């Protein structure tokens, strides 16, 4: 670690991941600085989800090191690390046998908060994600629409006020209108709460909308890392492949 410099919130150093013979990630190095939203963009199978799961220790690197707040994941108490890292996945992964309130209050409960504090926290979070607690707290996930479930997923991830959010295609399964609503809400929450986020997507428009920086993964390698403007100008082959997905409106800026 460089002297006198605040270590980045998340740091990948020469990280490789193998599944049997297959190399999923190859020599991956990048940082996520506090306050930014880094979007990892890539096709299916590019290794982006694998990279994300290494941050909260769901997966460990085969080689190299992933550090959170300067401490490598293999030196963290993983339970502690996970409770202070928000995690949102596609389809939310809500507990079907817990009410919305119990889902959102899970991490505070695991952390042993007093129950009145949990109740207050759940109410405030549900309000923040646009689900009136009086109407939604006692419902079960199966009684919600896809968009509502995803809002609950976001509220659950924010429950213990973690500095870092990990999001794996959080808006992937939603209809376009709901997706835009939730993306806007994410931007609003991120800015008001000052969260750092590492988000994984294959949707180039989502990347451009949400990212402060974009990293493009291709076959397990990071082929581009930079801001949106640089992304639109970049000449790398895989980045150009993503340019091709954009409407003309965007292409004019290229």
């Amino acid at each position, binding site marked *: 670690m460089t002297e006198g410099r605040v270590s980045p919130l998340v740091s990948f150093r020469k990280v490789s991941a193998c599944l049997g013979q297959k190399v999923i990630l190859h020599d991956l190095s990048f940082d996520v600085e506090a306050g930014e939203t880094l979007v990892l963009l890539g096709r299916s199978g590019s290794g982006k989800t694998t990279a994300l799961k290494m941050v909260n220790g769901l997966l460990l690197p085969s080689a190299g090191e992933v550090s959170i707040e300067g401490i490598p994941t293999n030196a963290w108490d993983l339970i502690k*690390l996970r409770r202070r890292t928000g995690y949102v996945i596609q389809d939310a992964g809500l507990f079907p*046998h817990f009410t919305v309130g119990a889902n959102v209050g899970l991490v505070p409960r695991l952390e042993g908060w007093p129950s009145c504090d949990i109740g207050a926290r759940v109410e405030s979070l549900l309000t923040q994600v646009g689900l009136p607690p009086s109407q939604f707290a006692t419902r079960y996930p199966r009684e919600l629409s896809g968009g509502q479930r995803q809002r609950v997923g976001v509220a659950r991830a924010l429950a213990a006020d973690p500095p870092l959010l990990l999001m794996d295609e959080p808006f992937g399964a939603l209809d376009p209108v709901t997706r835009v609503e939730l993306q806007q809400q994410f931007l609003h929450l991120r800015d008001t709460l000052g969260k750092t986020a590492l988000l994984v997507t294959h949707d180039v428009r989502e990347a451009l909308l949400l990212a402060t920086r974009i990293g493009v993964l291709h076959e397990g390698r990071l082929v581009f890392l930079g801001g949106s403007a640089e992304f639109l100008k970049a000449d790398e082959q895989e980045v150009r492949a993503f340019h091709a997905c954009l409407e003309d409106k965007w292409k004019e800026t290229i």
Partner: protein
Amino acid sequence: MSSALLSDVLNLTLEHLFLVGLSIGIAAALAIPAGILLTRRSVLQGWVLGFANVMQTVPSLALFGFLIPLPFLGGIGKQTAIVALVLYALLPILRNTLTGILGVDPAVRESAIAMGMTGPQLLWEVELPLATRTILAGLRIATVTTIGTATIAAAIGGGGLGVFIFRGLASVDTTLLLAGAVPAALIAVAADRGLEWVEQKLSPV
């Protein structure tokens, strides 16, 4: 029906219930924890399920017979009958515990781990509640089949309603046959319905 026969029916029914209840209790106490353990040790799955499968394929009368010469477990009487019934009941409970837990949506399990649940929290708060229905279904199958199989226990002196059936067969007496078969069938139907009701009640989703 004479009152002596009636009181015999009552006594043997109670004995039958005792045989079944104890056997299912022991089988569940062995198979549910074993099933949970197997979800954590996938290498053992084949071996243990294989053993339980083989136990199930041995014809019941033969299994009772095989057990008689064994020390500790065997001999003539209730103990041998219970050992055999337990061996029979293991498979459905074990298999359903395994299926129930492994059937939990991987996204839900991953969320639980990612939220920072410990191993025991994952088991008690997520996996077991979500597997309850399947585990109870296994328990129901085991109970209903054990009620039937327990009638054969009489062949090795285990008692129960099978006593009537074997006596009825030996003396070609339909009344005796029915005195054994009808209560056994009624118990099986009642157990099936009762456990189905519990399944519906306890099912969290």
